[in-house]
C-alpha cells in the first residue's frame, strides 16, 4: 500500500491528462446539472450597475476577444445583451480584436431578434479598427473620425442609435469583454481614467485576478470572471426574465466542477505521497 502511494506521487503525467479528459467528457456527454447560488461579488456589482442605468442610456460594448476564448466570453456577451436590451438601453458595440466583430454580431443579432430590437435604432456594431489604446484615446475626442461607418459600411452619422453620441464621454458605461491585450486595461487606462466613464467588464477567469485592483480602486464598476461569472450573470438575468433563452454557461459549470474536483484530488494525492516519502526519509526536506 505504502509503495502504491509513493508511486502515485510520481505518476506519469499522461495518466493525469487522461483523467482530466474523462472528467470533462463524461459530465458533458451525460448532461450533468448542478445549481448555481448567487453571492455578492463583482458579477453582482456589474449586474447592479446596469440595473441602475435609466432606460434610454447608452452603453458601449466592446468585443475584445476571439474564438479561442469563446466558451467563456460569448455567454457573457449574450447575457449582457439580453440584460441591456430588456432594459431598453441602447447598445453601441465595437471590437478591439478583429474577430470580435462577427462574434459580437452573432450575440447582438440573436438577442436583438428574440426581443424585437432593431439594428441602427437600438443597437449598432461599429466594427473593428486596429490601434488598441490609441484608438480609444482618439474615440475620446471624436468617434466619427475613427468609425465613420459601421462594420457593414453604413455611415453612422444618421443612425438613430448614435444620436447624441459623439465621443466616449457621451456613454453612460463602457463594457469590455476582454481576452487579453488590448482589452480591459486599455479601456480603464485610456477611457475610464481619462474621461471618467464607468467601466465594466468580462474576462477570462485567468485574467480576472489582475483586474481586482481596478475593482478595489473603483476604476471598474463590476467584472464577470470566466465561465463562473458568465453562469452567474445568466442566472441573474434569468431570475428577472423567465422567458430568456437558456444560456450555454450553466451546463458547462457541471463539467467544470468535476474537473476541479479531479485536480484537487490530484493535489491531495500528490501531497499524501510526498509526505509519506518524506517520513520514510526521516523527515528531511
Amino acid at each position, binding site marked *: 500500500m505504502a509503495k502504491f502511494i509513493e508511486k502515485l506521487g510520481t505518476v506519469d503525467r499522461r495518466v493525469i491528462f487522461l483523467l482530466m479528459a474523462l472528467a470533462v467528457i463524461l459530465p*458533458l456527454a451525460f448532461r450533468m446539472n448542478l445549481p448555481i447560488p448567487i453571492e455578492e461579488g463583482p458579477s453582482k456589482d456589474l449586474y447592479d450597475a446596469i440595473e441602475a442605468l435609466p432606460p434610454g442610456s447608452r452603453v458601449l460594448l466592446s468585443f475584445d476577444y476571439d474564438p479561442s476564448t*469563446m*466558451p*467563456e466570453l460569448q455567454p457573457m456577451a449574450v447575457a449582457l445583451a439580453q440584460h441591456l436590451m430588456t432594459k431598453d438601453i441602447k447598445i453601441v458595440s465595437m471590437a478591439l480584436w478583429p474577430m470580435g466583430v462577427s462574434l459580437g454580431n452573432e450575440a447582438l443579432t440573436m438577442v436583438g431578434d428574440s426581443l424585437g430590437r432593431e439594428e441602427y435604432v437600438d443597437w449598432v456594431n461599429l466594427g473593428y479598427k486596429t490601434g488598441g489604446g490609441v484608438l480609444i484615446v482618439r474615440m475620446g475626442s471624436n468617434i466619427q473620425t475613427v468609425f465613420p461607418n459601421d462594420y457593414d459600411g453604413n455611415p453612422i452619422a444618421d443612425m438613430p442609435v448614435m444620436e447624441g453620441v459623439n465621443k466616449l464621454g457621451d456613454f453612460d458605461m463602457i463594457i469590455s469583454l476582454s481576452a487579453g491585450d488590448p482589452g480591459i486595461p486599455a479601456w480603464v487606462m485610456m477611457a475610464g481614467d481619462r474621461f471618467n466613464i464607468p467601466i465594466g467588464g468580462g474576462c477570462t477567469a*485567468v485574467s480576472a485576478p489582475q483586474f481586482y485592483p481596478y475593482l478595489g480602486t473603483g476604476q471598474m464598476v463590476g467584472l464577470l470572471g*470566466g465561465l463562473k461569472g458568465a453562469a452567474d450573470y445568466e442566472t441573474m438575468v434569468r431570475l428577472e426574465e423567465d422567458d430568456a433563452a437558456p444560456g450555454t454557461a450553466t451546463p*458547462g459549470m457541471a463539467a467544470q466542477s468535476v474537473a476541479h474536483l479531479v485536480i484537487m484530488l490530484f493535489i491531495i494525492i500528490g501531497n499524501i505521497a510526498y509526505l509519506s516519502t518524506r517520513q520514510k526519509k526521516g523527515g528531511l526536506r
Partner: protein
Amino acid sequence: MNWEVIGIWLGALLSLSLYSFLYKDNPFYKFAEHLFVGMSAGYWVIYTIMNVLVPNWWQNMVPPSGGFQPIWIIPGVLGLFMLFRLIPKLSSYSRLSLALIVGTGAGLSMTAMLQTNALAQVHGTIISLGAGGGWFDWVSNIIMVTGVVCGLVYFFFSKPHEGVMGGAANIGITLLMVAFGASFGYTVMARISLLIGQTQFLLFDWLPTMGINL
C-alpha cells in the same frame, strides 16, 4: 457532404492531431503544427495589409476621393527602411524605423504604466485602517497595507535583505506566494472552460456528422 460538414471535419481532425501531442510528439502533431505556423503567418500578413496598411496608410496618402497627401510618404519610407534589413549594405537604415517604434513605445508606456500600475495602485492603498468598521476590516486593511509595503521591500535590489529589511522582504515574498497560489487556483477554472468549449465542439458538432448523437 457540404462545406459546413467539411469545415467541421477539418477542425476536428486538426484538433485531434494537436491533442495527440499530449501523448507524445508524432507525425500528426508535426503536420498540424507546421500547417498552423504557416497558415497563421499567412493570415497575419494579409490581415496587416488589409487592416492597417491599406486603410491607415495607403488610403490616407492616396484618398479614394482623390488627391495626394505627401506627408504620408514619411511613414511609408520608414516602413520600407524596416525591410532594408534584407539587404546587408542598407540594413543600418532600419535603425531609424526601429528608433521610432521603440521611442513611441517607451514614451507611451512610461506614462501609462506610471498612471495605472503605480499611482492608481498607491492611490487605492491609501485607506484608513478603520475603513469598514468591524474588527475584521481592521485585520484585512492591515494585511493589505503591510502586504503592499513589504512586497515592495522584497523588490529592493540595492540593499541586502538582512535585519528589518530581511524580515519585511520575507513577509513580502510570503504574501506574494499566497497571491500566486490564489491566482493559480482562480485560473484553473478558465483553463477547464476552454477544454469544455473544445469538447463540446467535438461531442456535439463533430460526432453528429457521423450519426452519433449524445
